[in-house]
């Protein structure tokens, strides 16, 4: 059984009832705040430190050899909760020596940044580690069309990330040595 206890407030003393000591102490606090270090960031000049694992604008990246990583498997398009990603699959041209072992590449890759919710599922699901949510957080445009990032823009945003696996090099080597897959 919970007993309700009514708390009795102590009656205010005379000096408390004038509120003047309290006002004075409040004034003291604000005055001392005048000289404290300012906590604001002067944004365009100073940038906030981006923590590890930050989910910024989703981008497409190339491997250290400058090759397109995406194989247009469309997993990201499938997993994307707001359906912001749209991929038009295409073939890798036959004469591309560098990627001769890859069958597919995106012909067009669009991420609609008006829909994107920066959840990072696409990065998580990508088997080729081709899509990354990087540190860029400031994105603006004058029209809706501008806010749809196409393939070129995505690669421009993404650049090249260091890749320790060199998966494709291995694949190529495997293929050449005759034991692909």
């Amino acid at each position, binding site marked *: 059984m919970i007993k309700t206890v009514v708390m009795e407030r102590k009656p205010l003393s005379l000096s408390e009832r004038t509120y003047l000591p309290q006002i004075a102490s409040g004034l003291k*606090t604000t*005055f001392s*705040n005048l000289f404290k270090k*300012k906590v*604001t960031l002067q944004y365009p000049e100073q940038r906030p430190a981006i923590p590890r694992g930050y989910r910024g604008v989703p981008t497409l990246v190339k491997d250290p050899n400058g090759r397109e990583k995406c194989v247009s498997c469309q997993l990201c398009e499938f997993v994307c909760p707001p359906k912001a990603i749209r991929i038009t699959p295409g073939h890798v041209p036959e004469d591309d020596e560098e990627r001769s072992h890859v069958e597919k590449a995106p012909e067009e890759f669009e991420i609609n940044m008006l829909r994107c919710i920066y959840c990072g599922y696409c990065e998580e699901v990508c088997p080729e580690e081709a899509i990354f949510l990087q540190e860029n957080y400031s994105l603006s445009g004058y029209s809706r069309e501008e806010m749809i990032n196409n393939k070129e823009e995505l690669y421009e945003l993404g650049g090249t990330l260091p890749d320790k696996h060199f998966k494709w090099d291995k694949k190529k080597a495997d293929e050449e040595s005759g034991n692909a897959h």
Partner: protein
Amino acid sequence: MDIELIQMLALKVTYAVVMVSVVMSIAGYTVLAERKVCAWMQGRVGPNRTVLPFVSAIPIIGPFLRNLGIFQPLADGLKFLFKEEIVPGHVNKFYYYLSPIVALVPALTTMTVLPFGEFTNAEGHTTPLVLANVDLGILFVFAISSLGVYGIVLAGWSSNSKYPFLGGIRSSAQMISYELAMGLSVLPVFLWVNAPGMTESGLSLVSIVNSQENAPWLVLIQPFSAFLFLIALFAETNRLPFDMPESETDLVGGFHTEYGSFKFGIFFVAEYAHVVIGSAIFTTLFLGGWHFLPWVADPWAPGLIGSLLGVGWFLAKTFCLIFFFIWVRWTLPRFRYDQVMKLGWAKLLPLALVNLIFYVILVTYLDQAAAS
């Protein structure tokens, strides 16, 4: 009309224009000071972006001025001018346009009797620097500033919508309540200055200031009067914790909710002009005006330099008081409306009466003691 009259008129008009522009620019910079001080108190930096192109080119001073936000009032004023002027369809047009003017004019009229310095010429003849040295200085100030409420009331009424209306109603009630306490709280000051045996007389602000030369400031003689007057001043200038007509948290924007662009700007400037004039009046009444320090003679020699220094000293005191206004605003929360009324009628008014009676008895006693 003869030439002399025209000359005098021209001179007076020039003085008036100069004074209005000075007070208005001080009001504009008070807005900046408000933003800056508020920012500093909240651990922010405040406006520090606006700059004129050729100023930013100056090596050290340029960035310094920019960080201080010196050019912000210019930008704000321009913004008010160039904004789209929206007049809601439901307002009473005539009063809607009239009320910003009604709000600004009294604020600027009170400065005519405000003395801000004195000039002693080569013959040793001293003239106070004031637009009109009216014998009734303080009464004139009260009379004109009591008209300032019409701007707010009319704005509230003509907007034809509920929040401005509430703001107007509150403001009219608050003004009447605190005017009484304000008048009663300065009476002891004039009683003291006009007491038998004192050198000065009359209700003029100049004589009040001169009574504090080489003598303690009146704030030291009558701290309680000064305190009551200050509280009433906060209420009369609609400053927090008494900003009932505006109270943006419960009344959206109060009386100026329906106003935009330059009309809002006029209200804004009028509010700060009230603060500037109020601080200046407090300075003349209680802080010795342009005189140096209590009990200390003015260190500057009479003459042009001396009077300039005096004016500077007066302005410095006024700025300190303006800072106090801002400081209080960013420290205290707003009173509830009924608390404001209760404070005005049930606390401030009786205290002012007690204060008055105390000084009546004191002055009478001193008078009798001097006579016997």
